[in-house]
């Protein structure tokens, strides 16, 4: 159902360490932590010692959180219960950060998008944030009609959580909102709705 070739659809180049950065702020979820551990393995211990990880641990068991944090050593890491709490902490850190700070985001697209959105609020160019997508393809979707957001969307079409319209999820993406755009799918013939499929597992 997706229209491909939409230029705003983000591309994620993969985590690349910047050895000159004075401080590395790394934000990841459980799936993204594999990419972080792989990047830390490619660098020396000093890079890791300059690194601080914010782990979005939603849906992750305590025992597993401890394993992930252990795997990232010698980087320091702190778990947060969900994405909003993770981003709130990130913003606190960015408020006093210096230019030698580099930001890395690994995991789901809503996580990466939220990190870039927060960084942009502090004047960081989105291209300066190193990103790697891992795990679920779930999306944050904005309804172009009521402007409400629907989180963790895996199906296409999807019902808008705010106004109830059935939305076609497009590749059309907004960096400012960190969301894909959803457009009413049965505007011409109300009720004529294609079968719902899991397009973003």
């Amino acid at each position, binding site marked *: 159902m997706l229209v491909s070739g939409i230029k705003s659809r983000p591309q994620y180049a993969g985590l690349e360490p*910047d050895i*000159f*950065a*004075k401080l590395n702020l790394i934000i990841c979820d459980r799936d993204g932590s594999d990419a972080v551990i792989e990047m830390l393995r490619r660098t020396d211990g000093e890079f890791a010692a300059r690194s601080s990880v914010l782990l979005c641990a939603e849906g992750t068991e305590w025992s597993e959180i401890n394993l992930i944090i252990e795997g990232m050593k010698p980087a320091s890491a702190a778990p947060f219960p969900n994405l909003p709490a993770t981003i709130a902490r990130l913003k606190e850190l*960015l408020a006093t*950060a*210096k*230019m*030698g*700070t*580099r930001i890395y985001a690994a995991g789901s697209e809503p996580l990466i998008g939220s990190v870039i959105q927060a960084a*942009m609020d*502090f*004047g*960081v*160019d989105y*291209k*300066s944030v190193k990103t790697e997508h891992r795990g679920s393809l779930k999306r944050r979707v904005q309804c172009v009609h009521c402007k409400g957001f629907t989180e963790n969307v895996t199906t296409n079409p999807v019902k808008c959580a705010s106004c109830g319209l059935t939305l076609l999820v497009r590749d059309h993406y907004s960096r400012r909102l960190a969301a894909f755009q959803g457009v009413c799918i049965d505007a011409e013939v109300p009720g004529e709705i294609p079968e719902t499929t899991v397009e973003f597992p």
Partner: protein
Amino acid sequence: MSISPVRRMRVAEVERVASRIKRFRLVDAAGHDLPAFSGGAHVVVGMKKGDHLLRNAYSLMGAPGDTSSYQISVLRTEDSRGGSAFMHEEVEVGSEIEITGPVNLFPIAKMGRRHILLAGGIGITPFMSMMHELSAQGADFELHYGVRSFEQGAYCDHLKAQYGDRVRLYQSDKGEKLPLERILEDQPLGSHMYVCGPKPMIDWALNLGRTVGWPEEALHSERFGAPAAGTPFVIKLARSQREIRVGPHQSILEALEQNGIDAPYLCRGGACGQCETAVVACDGPLQHNDHYLTDDERRSEKKIMICVSRTSGSSLTLDL
């Protein structure tokens, strides 16, 4: 041929602003309003001397919203190929010249929260319009300006009077050095650095920025200057079946223009990509002097930016 139209301008004012620098104020020859521009923009000035045609890029220095006139500053270079000598010796109030533009390849990063401007000598010019814009927006900025001496530096008094403590001067005749490492190390996230000046200064600033941990996207530069000289060679035009000689102090683009061939260009400084030309054959190595092609593209020897790059071989066949 530039993608922007040619505009005939009349010189309304000429002022010597430093020992080797003159400021020119240009108005539309037909009395029309000029397009507004943005801080950091430049125009390309065409200069005809006999059958010799030269085009040089000069930054606009006035207020970006002022559509009544454009102002440029020209340094009389010692090894002038004719451009700066022409502007200094032959252009006076009432002279008419042709320009194209304005074009901006050195814009302010609008999302930035702080702006560090680094100027060396005549590299001050793009910052004159940038500071107008930043100041009007209430943006946080500072200028670090290196000059040989107070007499040789343009607009030192004006800048101090206008912007006060935001402007720091460094005079090399007094042994003052721009403490760039210290400046860059202590800037808040969201800062941007802009540098314009002699090539060694630009290279130094960009390199230092990277090594103190600034991301590439926050480091901005603009280079002006004559295309690098070299040995003469012949260009063969595959499509139009012509052969044209390129002199040692001439660029391929200038040689084409002198022979009446309208090749596309925009910045004439190897930055914008407009004059990218396919190389059909070459009997010697290409000398890439641009800042546009990727390293892979350079190694492939399939593309050349004809405004600044050349060959050390004797002939080069282009898809023109």
